[in-house]
């Protein structure tokens, strides 16, 4: 797999924009792990990525932060 986008300590709206830019170089259908802080980031970013058309797969807590797993879905 190896696709990890680390957005810890990146605030809104930079976290969404960075995710969007990073996802541009990911191949369609690939699974990506996105590292998110607790709080605003983990509450808002998953929904925003879903609205962008990607497929959310899961969320797990890991040593004080969260790992969102999603599949890139290109338009």
């Amino acid at each position, binding site marked *: 797999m190896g696709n990890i986008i680390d957005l810890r300590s990146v605030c809104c709206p930079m976290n969404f924009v960075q995710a969007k830019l990073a996802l541009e170089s990911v191949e369609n259908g690939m699974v990506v792990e996105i590292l998110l802080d607790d709080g605003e980031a983990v509450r808002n970013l998953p929904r925003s990525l*879903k*609205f962008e058309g990607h497929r959310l797969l899961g969320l*797990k807590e890991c040593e004080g932060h969260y790992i969102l797993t999603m599949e890139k879905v290109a338009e």
Partner: protein
Amino acid sequence: MSEKRVKTTIDMKNLKAGGFIKERDKDLFTVRLRLPGGRLPVPRLRKIAEVAEKYGVEFVHLSVRQSMELIHVNISDFDGIIHELGEGGQKVATCGSRLRVPVACGGCEYNPNGLLDSQASALEVDEKLFATPTGHHKFKVAFSGCPFDCPKAAINDVGFIGAVKPELDRDQCISCGLCAKTCAEGAIEMDQDTKPLYYPEKCVSCGDCVKVCPVQAWIEKAKGYMVYIGGKWGRHPLVGTKYAAFLPAEKVVAFISEVLAWYREKAQGLGRIRLGKVIISEGADSLLDHLRNSFPDYVVETTLTHRVLENK
């Protein structure tokens, strides 16, 4: 004394709904423009700027309730300004003891939190009830598309807040846990089988669970407006209380009309009095019963006791 007196002519029918507010200085008025929901298409914005400039208006004021007000308009220019704004589709608002132009947030069209189309509701109410005389006092209406409630629904005579009642289809659920993490109210927790448990008493009907769910396991069981009645701010603030839940958008005009009917009747002989004060003297049950006749499926059992906030 042979000076010729200039006679100002003004078409009175243009002034019937109000919207012209006397300023301090002689002959000068503020002209309040009618912008339901605060939405102003760019061509109309351009037309307003053009007319304002022509009549010497140097600045506009963006009012607290989403109007654009033309400042320092001379009374002799009323007819010209109204006519020219009208060519661009721009009308004048209202004032006084009438139903005011509704305010609204952007709603669900483009805001990710929006649940209901608050803009469409504001437009519909403006179209059908604009400047309806109340016989007593002003009557303010606001629409919030979601429980974030940016327009502050409960400080209006009738305020609407978009809401969703979520329901889980456990068979569809993939146990991702996103809903539990997304819920800011602690209304969803993951249970031992790693399926979500829902606590409706904590739920504020924001629909975040429905929006984040990747597989549509959370669905909208009901969708409509929570309705708050009797609010106002000003010298003696009153916070409106909840009278109806999940009222469908298409019933909004009929609902407001029933509130107005009750207000007109119960405030008879009380002079210039706001709806909230009438509720305090009549008791909320009277209004609840009245509304229940027409909206039995949506009116709540009881509501909180209205109280003036003595915060001055």
